[in-house]
């Protein structure tokens, strides 16, 4: 690989032993993926934030590192809310370890945003190179914002945070971002009435077909929250890190992209609307969970409108970023007044909160895909309106 002076100095240990190790990690990645050089990244999102996943050895490794982030770096959701974990029944032994993990990251200069939606709190511009980890955030950054990131693991993201660099391969390179499979709906008219939940269900179906290929959707007009829902679900049911919606997502407006779509052949798959609606099977549930990925401001407002003046009759969780909790305090107060639990920093998938819930209703295609495997509960897909109706016993 071609190294500039700074890269070489990092590898030679001139910026300390920790950064030297970090650069060795990035160099190994560069070799594995045949990168020709390193490029600077604008921001980093670090996964491996829950003690549940990284364990004692992960915590020890983090504690052994002595360097600070040189670019803005955000932490993924953790295994519990930083405040009020006692009331949610999180065991003390787990909480103590989780707090040590958080402290280790803060010491490394990683901002404890504890969210899967860092794009609500940082400026990401089209064409920016990032090193983000969480699959739905990677999908949103690549697809909706037109930034460029591979899906990083915890250590490689941390390595980019502490050095500011990443090897240039995969989705950092424009020619690797073109669509490889095309999806159409048998009845595109039906999609005009869709909410975030139907887009999530479409993601469940399409992700399983796409695998790790880059999909292009034709004939849809989703808004940003619908795109978030679609992408998160495809990253869970498949390994989709980038997708395009023709005439909607930014890269489909590039002339070379239009030319490629017109001239290049690819597999075309027609998804039936009936298949998408089939995801919404009715199941008796004992809890409702909203906020996977963490809610946008618009979504918080909508949940508050629907819950205003109502009372929940079963555990009703609303997951948000702590920073959203601060900026949408009024709406979240309405939600809490209805008896719903507003939980920051974590989510239904990475916390132990759903583990004994039996069956859980959600409007998220991503949570729908992960709840059985990660929490051992039966999932039910519903629109936000249906989630509120069921959660309030109507």
């Amino acid at each position, binding site marked *: 690989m071609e190294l500039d002076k700074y890269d070489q100095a990092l590898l030679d240990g001139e910026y300390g032993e920790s950064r030297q*190790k970090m650069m060795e990690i990035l160099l*190994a990645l560069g070799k594995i993926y045949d990168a020709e050089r390193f490029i600077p990244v604008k921001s980093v999102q670090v996964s491996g934030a829950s003690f549940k996943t990284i364990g004692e050895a992960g915590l020890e490794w983090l504690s052994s590192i002595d360097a600070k982030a040189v670019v803005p770096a955000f932490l993924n959701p953790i295994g519990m809310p930083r405040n009020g974990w006692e009331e949610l029944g999180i065991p003390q032994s787990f909480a103590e370890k989780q707090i040590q993990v958080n402290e280790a990251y803060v010491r490394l200069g990683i901002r404890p945003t504890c969210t899967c939606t860092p794009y609500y709190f940082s400026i990401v511009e089209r064409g920016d190179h990032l090193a983000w980890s969480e699959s739905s955030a990677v999908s949103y950054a690549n697809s909706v914002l037109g930034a460029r990131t591979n899906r990083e693991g915890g250590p490689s993201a941390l390595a980019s945070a502490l050095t500011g660099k990443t090897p240039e391969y995969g989705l950092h390179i424009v020619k690797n971002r073109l669509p490889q499979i095309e999806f159409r709906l048998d009845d595109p008219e039906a999609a005009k009435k869709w909410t975030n939940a139907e887009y999530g269900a479409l993601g469940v179906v399409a992700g399983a077909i796409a695998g790790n290929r880059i999909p292009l959707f034709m004939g849809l007009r989703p808004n940003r929250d619908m795109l978030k829902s679609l992408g998160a679900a495809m990253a869970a049911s498949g390994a989709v890190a980038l997708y395009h919606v023709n005439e909607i997502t930014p890269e489909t407006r590039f002339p070379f992209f239009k030319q490629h779509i017109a001239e290049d052949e690819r597999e075309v798959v027609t998804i039936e609307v009936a298949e998408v609606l089939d995801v919404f099977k009715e199941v008796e549930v004992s809890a409702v969970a909203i906020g996977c990925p963490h809610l946008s401001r618009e979504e918080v407002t909508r949940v508050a409108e629907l819950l205003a003046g109502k009372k929940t009759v079963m555990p009703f969780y609303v997951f948000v970023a702590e920073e959203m909790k601060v900026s949408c305090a009024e709406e979240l107060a309405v939600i809490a007044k209805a008896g719903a639990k507003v939980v920051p920093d974590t989510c239904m998938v990475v916390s132990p909160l759903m583990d004994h819930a039996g069956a859980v209703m959600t409007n998220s295609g991503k949570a729908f895909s992960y709840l059985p495997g990660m929490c051992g509960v039966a999932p039910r897909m519903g629109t936000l309106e249906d989630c509120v109706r069921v959660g309030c016993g109507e």
Partner: protein
Amino acid sequence: MTLKGRSIAKGTGTGELLYTDTPISFLGGVDAATGIIIDEKHPLHGQSVAGKVLAFPYGKGSTVGSYVMYGLARNKVAPAAIINTECETIIAIGAIISGIPMVDRLDGDVSGLSGMITVNGSTGEVSTAE
């Protein structure tokens, strides 16, 4: 004799060869406290990786496997070195953060080597004592 490969994680390690043609998942596959391979379906089940030159095709399973390798090193039961046919990120990162010398893409067959083997992760060379 000496084989030449690609440097992945620097440093030098010497030990007996522990060879398998089956990929290894460190998470759930190797006990971080003892270094013993606990995956019952793996041909090396019950054997210890501690102090060995561990040769296998490539890693598989969860990325948390990198931390299991770090745990092995902390508990002083890590392999002396790792040889992969074609390395991927879990094992490469695990080897680097744990200080385990590692090479891949050797220019000859490692399975038949015997005696003490030295892996130089910095130069990519693998040599036998004879």
